[in-house]
C-alpha cells in the first residue's frame, strides 16, 4: 500500500511543470534545482541501503576476517558451510518462529485494546493510550537489561509476586532456562512494541464513522456484533498493511535479545541477527565477515521474498476492493 500511495501522492498534479514541451536536455536543465535538492537524500539511500545490499552479496563470496589485506575469493564455499551449520538453521527457524508466535498475538491484542479505546464514550482513552505506548519510545537495549532484573530468579519482582501469590513454590529462572527463555523474550517483545500496532489500528479505525456505531446501538446491536458487521469489513485493507509492517519489524530485534539473553542459554534464543553478529563481530571468535554475509544474504533473501509476496497480495486485495467499489 505504501508503494502505491507514494506513486499516487507523488503524481498529484504538480505545480511546477518541468516535463512539458522542449527537449529532454532543456527540461533537465530547467529542473536542475530538483536534482540538486535530491542529492543528500539519494546519497544517504545509496550509501546506507542500496550499496550495503549489493556489497553483502559480494562479501558473501569472500573468505575475509575484516582486514582488507587478507580477502580471498571463496566462491560458494561460505554458502555450502552456512547450509550445513545446524546453528544457522536453528537461528533461521527461530527467527520465523518468533515472528509467527509474536506477531499474531501482538496484532490481535492491539486490535482489542484499540477497539476499546476507540469508543467515543470512554473517557481518558488518550491517557490509557499514552501508557500503552510508553514502552515504544524507550531503548530496546536498556529494556533488555532492565528485564533481566524484572525476571531474575534472585528476588526479581515477577518471581516475588508469583511466590507471594502462591502460584510458584520456587523461583523460575525465566531467562536462564532454555525452555522458557525464548517465550520470555517474545512476551517482552510484544509488550515493548504493542503500542505501535495499537496506534496503527487506531489510525485504521478512523475510517469507521462513529455515527454508524450510534445507529447500530439504537438498533440494539451488541458490541461484538457491531464490530463484526461494521468495523471489521472496513478495516480489512489496513489489516494487510499492519500485518506486513509487523512481520518485517519482528525480525529486527537485535537490541532486545542481545541485551536480555545474548542468544543464550545454549543458543536457545539466538535469532538470525545475533547469529550474524556473533560470526562477524562476536567477542572471542575470529571475525568471519564473508561467512556472516552469506548467512545474512540467505536470510535477507527469504525476508525479501516474504515481503514481496505480502506486497503482491496487498496489491491484489486493493485492486479487488477498487473493482468492488466501481461496480
Amino acid at each position, binding site marked *: 500500500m*505504501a508503494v502505491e500511495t*507514494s506513486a499516487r501522492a507523488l503524481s498529484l498534479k504538480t505545480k511546477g511543470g518541468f516535463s512539458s514541451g522542449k527537449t529532454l536536455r532543456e527540461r533537465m536543465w530547467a529542473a536542475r534545482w530538483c536534482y540538486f535538492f535530491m542529492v543528500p537524500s539519494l546519497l544517504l539511500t545509496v550509501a546506507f541501503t542500496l550499496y550495503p545490499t549489493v556489497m553483502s552479496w559480494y562479501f558473501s563470496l569472500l573468505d575475509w576476517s575484516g582486514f582488507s589485506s587478507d580477502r580471498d575469493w571463496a566462491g560458494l564455499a561460505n554458502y555450502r558451510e552456512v547450509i550445513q551449520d545446524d546453528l544457522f538453521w536453528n537461528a533461521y527457524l527461530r527467527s520465523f518462529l518468533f515472528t509467527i508466535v509474536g506477531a499474531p498475538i501482538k496484532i490481535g491484542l492491539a486490535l482489542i485494546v484499540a477497539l476499546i479505546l476507540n469508543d467515543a464514550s470512554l473517557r481518558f482513552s488518550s491517557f490509557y493510550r499514552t501508557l*500503552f505506548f510508553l514502552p515504544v519510545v524507550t531503548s530496546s*537495549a536498556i529494556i533488555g537489561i532492565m528485564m533481566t532484573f524484572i525476571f531474575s530468579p534472585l528476588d526479581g519482582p515477577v518471581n516475588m509476586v508469583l511466590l507471594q501469590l502462591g502460584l510458584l513454590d520456587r523461583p523460575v529462572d525465566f531467562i536462564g532456562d532454555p525452555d522458557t527463555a525464548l517465550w520470555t523474550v517474545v512476551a517482552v517483545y510484544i509488550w515493548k512494541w504493542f503500542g505501535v500496532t495499537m496506534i496503527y489500528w487506531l489510525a485504521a479505525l*478512523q475510517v469507521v464513522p462513529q455515527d454508524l456505531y450510534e445507529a447500530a446501538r439504537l438498533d440494539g446491536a451488541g458490541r461484538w456484533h457491531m464490530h463484526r458487521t461494521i468495523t471489521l469489513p472496513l478495516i480489512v485493507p489496513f489489516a494487510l498493511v499492519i500485518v506486513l509492517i509487523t512481520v518485517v519489524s519482528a*525480525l529486527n530485534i537485535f537490541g532486545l535479545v542481545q*541485551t536480555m539473553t545474548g542468544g543464550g542459554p545454549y543458543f536457545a534464543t539466538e535469532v538470525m541477527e545475533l547469529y550474524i553478529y556473533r560470526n562477524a563481530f562476536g567477542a572471542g571468535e575470529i571475525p568471519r565477515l564473508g561467512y*556472516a554475509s552469506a548467512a545474512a544474504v540467505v536470510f535477507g533473501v527469504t525476508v525479501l521474498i516474504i515481503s514481496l509476496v505480502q506486497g503482491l497480495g496487498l496489491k491484489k486485495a486493493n485492486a479487488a476492493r477498487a473493482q468492488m467499489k466501481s461496480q
Partner: protein
Amino acid sequence: MGQRATPIASTIKGPGSLSSGASGPWKRKRFRPRTLITHLILLPICFLWIYPFLWMVSAGLKTEREIYSGLALIPETWRWENFQRAWVVARIGEYFVNTVIITLGSIAIVLVSVSLMGYVLGRYQFPGKRLVVSVFAVTIFLPEGYTIIPIVQLLQSLHLTNSLAGVTLAQSGGAHVVMVLLFAGYFAQLPKELEEAAVIDGASFLRVFWEIMLPLAKPVVATTIILQFMSSWNAFLQPLVLTLSRPELRTLAVGMYAFRGEYSTDWSGMAAAATISLAPVIITFLFLQRYFIEGIAGSVKQ
C-alpha cells in the same frame, strides 16, 4: 503532564488525526455501567504495563538490600548517590553527551535530506522522477539490519569508524521512506499561488523552499524530528559495532550494556543509569505525544 486530561492529540482534528475520545455527540451524557467496568479492567492492566519503569526508578533510589527484600515502590530513604555513582563511575555522563551529539547530528542531516526530497517529489514533475520513486519503493522491501557489515566496511574506507561522525552518519543513513512521504504529501497539497507570487518577486528556488515552504511544513518537521530522535537515541547495533574499540565513544544504550558486563551485581547503580538513559525520551514523549503518535500513524494512514 498538564495536558493529560485534555490530550493534545485529540485537539487536532485534521483528516485522519487520531481524535479518539473527543468526538461523539453522546459523550459524557449517559452513565454506562459498562464504561466503569472497562476502567476497572484497564487501570490495573495499565499499572502492570508501566510497572517495570516504576520498579526501575524505585530500584535506582534504593539500597541493594532493599531491592531484594520487597516489592514496595517507595524507598525507605532516597539514595541519590546511586545516580551520582552511575553518572561518574559508569561514565553515564560521558555517554549521555555522546548520545546527545549523535542524536542532534542525525536529526539535522535527516531533516535536511528528507525535507528537500519530499519537497521536490511532492511539488515538481521532472525527467527521472519515476526512477527515483521506484528506487524508494524498492527500499521498503529491503530488509534492514542485515547490512551492518558493508556499512562498517564503508565507514572504514571513509576513515569514519571509531568516531562520533561515523556513528552519526550511519544513524542518518537509509531512505526514510515514511518521512519523505509525509513531506511529499504535505507539500503537494499547498496551493501553487504561494510560489508563483514569490517567483514573480524574483525569489530563487532555494529561497522559495527555505523562506516560504519549509516554515509552512512545521508539523511534518516536528514529526520527523521526533521519529529520528526516537531512532537515534535508542539505536544499539550500529553504535555497538562502530565503537567496539573506542569505549569513550559509547552511547547510552551501548554504555549500559558494557556497564552490565562489568558490574553485573550493582542493581541499584544500573537501575539509576537506566533511569537517566530513559528519562529524556520518556519526558519528551509525555509532552509531545501528539507528534510521536502522528508519526507512527503516518506509515499506515496513506
